[in-house]
């Protein structure tokens, strides 16, 4: 059969969509890549990294490393931009070239040296073991058969892995210190191995743990670069570190964060629920707005993608039906977090092009939610009585006109409840994008909690914020459905 005009339309739509997206990330990157370095930095990892309330490192006390980079950049005359992500994501992003440098109290290990070039080390950091405040454990020999919590990819994890057979304990992995410490606090984990300065910071800020060992395996801390690339930036930073050490600036900086004024956090009267809301109002609203933006743009893209998939799914030709089912099958079959990692960290490995975080988030939502929308659209169209097709076609209307004038209006009406439901699911799914570091509401919470350690109260505030938005959406959808039935 000859390709009819609507088949050609679908092809050109798909091609346009793809080129638009390709253009989106290509253009944005090329324009800035020359003079500005992109540096990957972890979420708050005090005292090395301390995000301010807006989740950025622009404040007065951003932590040892951001403050050091700020001083070096000024001294060495270069510009930089931060990309905030988890520690594991930094290691992968370094490898894929998404970032020029990465930092997060990164230990220099032989394994990492194979893939990463390191700057001169500026600090030595050791692992300590900590247990709950009232725990009776004081020695590693008491860990037999128990669970030890570590942060995946961190030095504490590497150490725990090396001794786990000797002491016979099990390892549980976490992505944030706060979640890990709370696990130990509640008694799920018997102990944790973590960086000494980091744990001290947590304890000073009210985490009820105690350190029971001396610093073990003090390892050098340094900034990482992709192996063999960015020699220029590496040289500048090495130069800067040397300058800071020679002039005494480095010691002063480290003292500020380990002993001095750099680690002050909220006073106790700011730690009531209202105090926390008041203090973090701006950050929470910014996070909420990011969530809403992602939901709206992501849903619109998912709707467009889903419509194309749905229309392909009811096409006359076997090829289009098969293609639609295959695409839906693939994206419904991949967990959204895996898809997000694949797009943000995996794809640049393949194409050599960096993808902006927001674009990666929207693309993830479009593909994942779009697959569900595609199934909804196909189901909606198929639910329209076949007699409607026959009546429209027997009048002489071509397939496309029958679809647009007769089938689609009836099908869309059938779909509305499912589409609204999908919109609510999309809103909730945006929280998954916190895994790649998108500063939406959930990630904002993670960042705030890493600083103030108020896990329970902050998550309660955030849960209520989600519920308010979803309640409003549900009311809106009920209103729309009532209007449509009338």
């Amino acid at each position, binding site marked *: 059969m000859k390709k009819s005009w609507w088949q050609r339309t679908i092809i050109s739509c798909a091609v346009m969509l793809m080129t638009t997206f390709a253009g989106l990330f290509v253009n944005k990157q090329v324009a800035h890549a020359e003079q500005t370095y992109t540096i990957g930095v972890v979420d708050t990892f005090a005292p090395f990294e301390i995000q301010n309330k807006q989740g950025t490192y622009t404040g007065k006390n951003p932590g040892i490393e951001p403050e050091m980079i700020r001083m070096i950049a000024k001294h060495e005359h270069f510009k930089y931009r931060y990309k905030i992500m988890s520690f594991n994501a930094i290691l992968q992003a370094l490898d894929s070239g998404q970032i020029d440098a990465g930092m997060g109290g990164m230990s220099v290990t032989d394994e990492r040296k194979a893939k990463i070039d390191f700057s001169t080390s500026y600090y030595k950091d050791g692992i300590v073991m900590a247990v709950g405040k009232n725990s009776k454990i004081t020695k590693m020999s008491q860990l037999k058969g128990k669970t030890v919590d570590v942060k995946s990819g961190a030095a504490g994890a590497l150490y725990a892995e090396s001794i786990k057979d000797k002491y016979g304990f099990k390892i549980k992995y976490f992505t944030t210190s706060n979640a890990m410490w709370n696990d130990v606090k509640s008694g799920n984990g018997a102990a944790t191995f973590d960086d000494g300065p980091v744990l001290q910071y947590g304890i000073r800020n009210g985490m009820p743990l105690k350190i029971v060992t001396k610093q073990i395996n003090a390892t050098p801390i340094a900034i990482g670069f992709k192996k063999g690339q960015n020699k220029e930036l590496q040289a500048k930073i090495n130069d800067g570190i040397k300058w800071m050490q020679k002039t005494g600036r480095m010691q002063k900086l480290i003292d500020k964060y380990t002993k001095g004024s750099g680690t002050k956090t909220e006073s106790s009267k700011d730690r009531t629920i209202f105090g926390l809301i008041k203090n973090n109002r701006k950050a929470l609203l910014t996070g909420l707005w990011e969530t809403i933006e992602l939901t709206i743009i992501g849903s619109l893209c998912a709707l467009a993608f889903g419509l194309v998939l749905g229309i392909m799914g009811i096409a006359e030709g076997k090829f289009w039906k098969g293609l639609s089912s295959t695409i839906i099958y693939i994206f419904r079959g991949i967990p959204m977090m895996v898809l997000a990692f694949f797009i943000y960290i995996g794809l640049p490995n393949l194409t050599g092009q960096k993808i902006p975080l927001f674009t990666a988030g929207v693309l993830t939502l479009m593909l994942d939610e779009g697959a569900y929308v595609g199934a909804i659209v196909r189901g909606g169209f198929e639910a329209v009585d076949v007699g409607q097709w026959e*009546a429209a076609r027997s009048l002489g*209307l071509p397939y496309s006109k029958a679809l647009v004038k007769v089938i689609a209006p009836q099908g869309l009406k059938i779909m509305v409840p499912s589409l609204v439901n999908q919109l609510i699911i999309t809103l909730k799914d945006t929280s998954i994008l916190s895994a790649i570091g998108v500063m939406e509401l959930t990630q904002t919470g993670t960042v705030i909690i890493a600083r103030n350690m108020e896990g329970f109260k902050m998550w309660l505030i955030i849960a209520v914020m989600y519920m308010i938005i979803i309640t409003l959406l549900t009311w809106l959808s009920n209103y729309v459905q009532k209007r449509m039935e009338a």
Partner: protein
Amino acid sequence: MDKQYKVQVKDLHKSYGENEVLKGIDLAVKPSEVVCMIGPSGSGKSTFLRCLNRLEVPNSGHIYIDGYDIADSKTDINLVRQNIGMVFQHFNLFPNMSVIDNITLAPVELKKMSKEEAQEAALHYLDIVGLKEKANVNPRTLSGGQKQRVAIARALAMKPDVMLFDEPTSALDPEMVGDVLGVMQDLAKEGMTMIVVTHEMGFAKRVADRVVFFHDGKIREDGTPEQIFEHPQHPDTQNFLNKVLNV
């Protein structure tokens, strides 16, 4: 094809997998002729009718209407369908538009008629079927008989050469049947070429020029209403008529 016929079917076959439902149909219909097709359910009469505008695609054979071979996949079927009106058992009005929009949709989209022109014509056809006052209501609010009359007006608005009726009164309450058959009888008087699948033997007797008896995927008997109803030749025909007429 023969010029004297409006519709000419030659050796038409249609199977669903192993199951052959049309086993070689030959039929010729003259202009202005009204042909009623009767027969037991499953005999293939509806499938045959649906082949005539390619709602069903035949496996082999030829169907000539207005010089086009419907069975040939190269024929632009959308063009040919504009000249073949079809009325369904379940009306299939479009519930997402008003009665008059149901009627004007195809003329405006396909014949490039202006909206006003199409609406004027639509009111004319609604008048013919006696439903002018229902122009702006939603089809959902109509009774079955009214829906079917709107469906006839919708088909007529394309000014077709041939009208196909697929059991047009089977889904109606008995008191509605008369209205619809009346409209069809008027159409026949106007000289419309009509092919009607029906169980209304009275209508077939009264209105048809020819009655065709289907049985087991074949045409068993083909003749005037008198021949078929008064003097059926084939035992299958006699058997069928005994069942339906002596209830």
